[in-house]
């Protein structure tokens, strides 16, 4: 039987962690872009757009990410379209991230005081001008910490894609365990790598929150 050193295990896990990082980035950036579009539909003046965005967000937030992954992976297969695991994983995570980010950001826009709308209205500004010059700059400041905080959820969310066969950190953990029969060591290392990815994000979210809060008071 072949012997595996801890370094062998770690090296393989780190190689797979690159895919976790890449998938997280793609999901976060893609989800962010789609989230902005959803946000403007959600807070916009078109009733149809508002209803669509609200329905979309509620649907995605009220179903498990795993089901969304299954649907993306197997759903299109029913129509004879062969979806590779990386595509299903990326698409499902982008759609999922967008729903949560849009809702987080909507809360930030709502958090801007009503008086800001009234004052800018009374100065003759239209909706788009108010949004661009008065509301969004203030909402943005509030939005940074929870957005960075949510990126942690995205990183951890990528672990689920192992179930549809996308080889990222968790899947690699399973593969390596099957070869080494050292589940505790392997999954312990997997957890440590996730921690190393996520902890700096949570920490920076906290620091940003404090910084922006102070900036808000003193500039």
């Amino acid at each position, binding site marked *: 039987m072949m012997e595996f050193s801890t370094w062998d295990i770690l090296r393989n896990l780190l190689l797979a962690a690159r895919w976790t990082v890449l998938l997280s980035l793609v999901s976060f950036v893609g989800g962010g872009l789609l989230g902005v579009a959803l946000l403007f539909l959600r807070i916009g003046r078109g009733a149809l757009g508002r209803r669509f965005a609200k329905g979309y967000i509620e649907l995605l937030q009220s179903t498990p990410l795993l089901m969304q992954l299954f649907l993306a992976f197997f759903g299109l297969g029913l129509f004879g379209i062969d979806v590779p695991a990386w595509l299903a994983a990326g698409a499902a995570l982008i759609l999922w991230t967008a729903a949560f980010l849009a809702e987080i950001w909507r809360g930030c826009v709502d958090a801007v005081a009503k*008086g800001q709308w009234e004052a800018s*209205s009374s*100065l003759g500004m239209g909706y788009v001008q108010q949004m661009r010059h008065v509301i969004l700059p203030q909402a943005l400041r509030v939005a940074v910490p929870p957005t960075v905080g949510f990126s942690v959820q995205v990183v951890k969310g990528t672990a689920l894609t192992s179930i549809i066969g996308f080889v990222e950190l968790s899947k690699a953990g399973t593969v390596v365990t099957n070869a080494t029969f050292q589940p505790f060591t392997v999954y312990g290392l997997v957890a440590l790598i996730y921690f190393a990815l996520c902890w700096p994000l949570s920490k920076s979210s906290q620091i940003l929150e404090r910084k922006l809060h102070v900036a808000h008071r003193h500039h």
Partner: protein
Amino acid sequence: MSLIAITEVRKRFGSVEVLKGINLDVARGEVVAIIGRSGSGKSTLLRCVNGLESIDDGSIMVAGAQLLPDDLHLKALRLKVGMIFQQFNLFPHLSAGRNVMLSQMVVKKTPKDEAEAMARRMLDRVGLGHKFDAYPDQLSGGQQQRVAIARALAMQPMALLCDEITSALDPELVNEVLAVVKELAAEGMTLLMVTHEMRFARDVCDRVVFMHQGRVHETGPPDEVFGRPRTPELQQFLGAQL
């Protein structure tokens, strides 16, 4: 012809009728104070004149143009009447100078240097020329309210609506704001103000309107309204004020 003509205006919030047929004309250059208990509808009336609340019935004319609830008419109206709020509502992410410049540049498309020159003039006018670069949270309440006045003035409105503009201020800061308003009145600005400052209303206003339960209950020159109140409601209101 009056600058602001309010005719039979009614406003309802749900089942509560807040304004029950208001008639009020304000002439050019006139300074009118609206007094009354809280809940008498005076703030709502002011907000209707600026289009922040829609009216259910009646009409509001400003400088001969009817107030209609679409974007184009509202914008035209708001270029004619400025509004000052109880809570100042300065834009917290912009310096005082930028606060005064923003709407000129965005709404009137004034070039930046002209908007800045205007902002400096208006801040000077309210005695805050030296605070151009200060952010709202670095200013006292009284200073913030004066910046808000400068911001409204920079749009060169024909009239200013003041909604209890000193009510959120510490007592020692009230006078610096009232002094600015008094100066505006002396320069001939048309002012329609909801206020609890009875002494100020008596000193500065041409006419005082007493609102009670959604109606204009009594109106007249300050000497008459304060000196010889005719209705028991006004007598009681003034009695409670002293």
